[in-house]
């Protein structure tokens, strides 16, 4: 009402004709507003307010889901603006780069993805009960038996190998070499030495497994005085002979 008063005052100031005020000349029956809602409902029932389908509206087009996505797109714009404002304060160069990863995606990837996943979800479905085709108890026994078998076989080979080494070593140790050699005839020994390249140096013979270290001082004690005299006499004569020849 205050606005009406203001408008009238403005009009009075503008024109004297309007100074006296003008009443609205149109008249509406008192029952009009009282019955308005009822009248509209009656019209709707009669179908008088249904828009005429034959009327052609101008061919305006709206993108699909425009109104359903409107709130989201406005929110996105606000958030993008925030990010952009933020960057401009400490890394403005980044605002000039497109905010979209440049990688390629195979054609129809997202359409096909659903099918691919459907297969997997069926497999992983919690509703699907997986029934084993093998009796679980027998299956466990079979696994245990195979493990035991494997360990036993492995153990057999390990122990068999070590015992065969020990056995062969023991058998070699127990051989009576001297007795065996005596049984062999001289002809056979000669044939063996001729047919086999048996090369043994004096060193090989001394440094054998069973050879004891030779101590010359100890060894000389075992030689008798007569044997020594005989040795010195032989050596002395041989030296005299050599001098005479010279």
């Amino acid at each position, binding site marked *: 009402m205050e606005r009406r008063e203001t408008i009238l005052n403005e009009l009075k100031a503008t024109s004297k004709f309007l100074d006296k005020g003008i009443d609205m000349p149109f008249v509406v029956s008192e029952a009009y507003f009282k019955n308005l809602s009822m009248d509209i409902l009656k019209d709707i029932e009669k179908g008088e307010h249904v828009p005429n389908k034959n009327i052609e509206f101008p061919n305006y087009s709206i993108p699909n889901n425009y109104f359903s996505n409107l709130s989201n797109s406005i929110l996105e714009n606000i958030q993008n603006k925030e990010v952009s404002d933020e*960057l401009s304060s400490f*890394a403005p160069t980044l605002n000039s780069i*497109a905010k979209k*990863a440049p990688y390629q995606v195979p054609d129809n990837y997202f359409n096909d993805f659903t099918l691919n996943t*459907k297969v*997997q979800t069926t497999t992983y479905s919690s509703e699907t009960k997986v029934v084993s085709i093998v009796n679980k108890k027998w299956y466990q026994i079979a696994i245990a038996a195979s493990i035991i078998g494997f360990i036993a076989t492995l153990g057999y080979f390990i122990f068999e190998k070590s015992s065969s080494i020990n056995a062969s070593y023991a058998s070699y140790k127990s051989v009576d070499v001297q007795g065996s050699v005596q049984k062999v005839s001289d002809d056979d020994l000669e044939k063996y030495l001729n047919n086999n390249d048996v090369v043994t140096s004096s060193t090989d013979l001394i440094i054998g497994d069973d050879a004891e270290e030779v101590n010359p001082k100890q060894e000389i004690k075992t030689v008798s005085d007569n044997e020594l005299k005989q040795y010195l006499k032989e050596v002395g004569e041989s030296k005299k002979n050599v001098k005479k020849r010279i």
Partner: protein
Amino acid sequence: MHLDDRELLDLFRNISTKESAFEAIIKKFQERLYWHIRKMVISHDDTNDMLQNVFIKVWKGLDNFREDSQLYTWLYRIATNECLTFLEQRKKKSTFSLEDDENGMSNTIKADQGFDGNKLEWKLQLAIQKLPERQRLVFNLRYFDAMPYEKMSKILETSEGALKASYHHAAKKIEQYILNN
């Protein structure tokens, strides 16, 4: 048009509409999750494998989803964990140094069909690979997805202040790389 998360969850909990609801969830989130993963692992094949794993985990875990957080946040968290696990495993498998791992990622980027070293968006991708993994995640979520820090905080379980600082450092490092290369 996509259904809202509340409707999708109700449909998923109904045994007769469970599968169709799950398909709708995939349709609704597949693209966002794909890009979230792709920007971290670069290769399409790795991304595809991981996206499959993410949705398998969703299928298994959605019955127990307590709705303390939004479905979107929960899905992003699964995808993020999947990314971090994958990158960790790749690092362990690699016999080379961290630097070689970075070079490997850069080589994967350069091997992309559309790669153009002169274009800023590719330089940006190369620069992002220089960041530590978690900083890379923060940068990608903020820069490409314009994700508010509040949401990011729920996904990465880190305070908003720490995320802001991390993003700030990441953006500065990237800008330096772009300006110097």
